[in-house]
């Protein structure tokens, strides 16, 4: 079974963000999961449909293709992080670094030896990106989300 990775791309209007002093309305997110019912493509309220165990990559780019931007932190609503190993990774060349993590495993299908802390239930998990650009830190307030769904082949009736 080969589960494709999910890439989430956040394009930031840096000048708009700095002049409005907020990211709302100045950040546009898309992912490559649209065939799985992702909603909010191209907006700040992207809700990405993901599966247990799937790798999620968060990329960020400046629309002006000049300002240095990076994700400083992913802030999970109510501190509920549905992913493991969320951290920053580097890319070769001049692409900005990116964040990645792995969606935890299905709490409804416990696996011996896997602790509860590495399991998660299906549902919608909101987060916001804390972004650094031009030396300034700003945090999203629009609450994009991961929508964790059980894959069809993972039915408990099997």
């Amino acid at each position: 079974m080969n589960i494709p990775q999910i890439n989430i791309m956040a394009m930031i209007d840096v000048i708009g963000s700095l002049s409005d002093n907020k990211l709302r309305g100045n950040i546009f997110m898309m992912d490559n999961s649209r065939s799985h019912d992702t909603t909010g493509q191209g907006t700040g309220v992207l809700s990405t449909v993901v599966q247990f165990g799937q790798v999620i990559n968060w990329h960020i780019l400046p629309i002006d293709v000049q300002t240095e931007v990076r994700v400083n932190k992913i802030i999970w609503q109510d501190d509920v992080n549905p992913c493991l190993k969320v951290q920053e990774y580097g890319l070769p060349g001049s692409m900005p670094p990116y964040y990645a993590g792995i969606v935890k495993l299905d709490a409804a299908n416990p696996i011996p030896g896997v602790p509860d802390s590495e399991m998660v239930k299906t549902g919608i998990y909101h987060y916001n990106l804390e972004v650094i650009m031009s030396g300034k830190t700003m945090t999203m307030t629009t609450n994009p989300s991961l929508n964790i769904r059980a894959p069809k082949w993972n039915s408990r009736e099997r």
Partner: protein
Amino acid sequence: MDTNIAVIVDIAAALAAGELRGNIYLVDGNKSAGSKGEGTEGLQTAINVGDTITWSAWGLQVETKVRIESFSFPAGEVIDVVRGGNAIAGYTWSGKVKKGFSGVYQYNLNLRVESRKMSLTTLPSLNVQ
């Protein structure tokens, strides 16, 4: 105001579907000047005569390259675009909006997605003010 337009392509989906429609997103940095359709394939960029526009193209699969090969402006050559580049974006295209134009001008974007040529049939536009 000079602005940038970023074109983001869901490469795997575009190649599977055989078309860009539904698999491409355009954003610019000129929303405060009145651009419409941010984050959609029908982006209408508000721009003034004499302003410079720079286009860049990105894949949602960042390891795969998308390039803009050419533009066409069926309703009038409102801008002469030339190829350039920078460290982050690789290839870019930019040009200056010409004098004597006013109103909405749709344009065609011809992309190379991996080795395949694909054109955007849902036309984005420039709204010259």
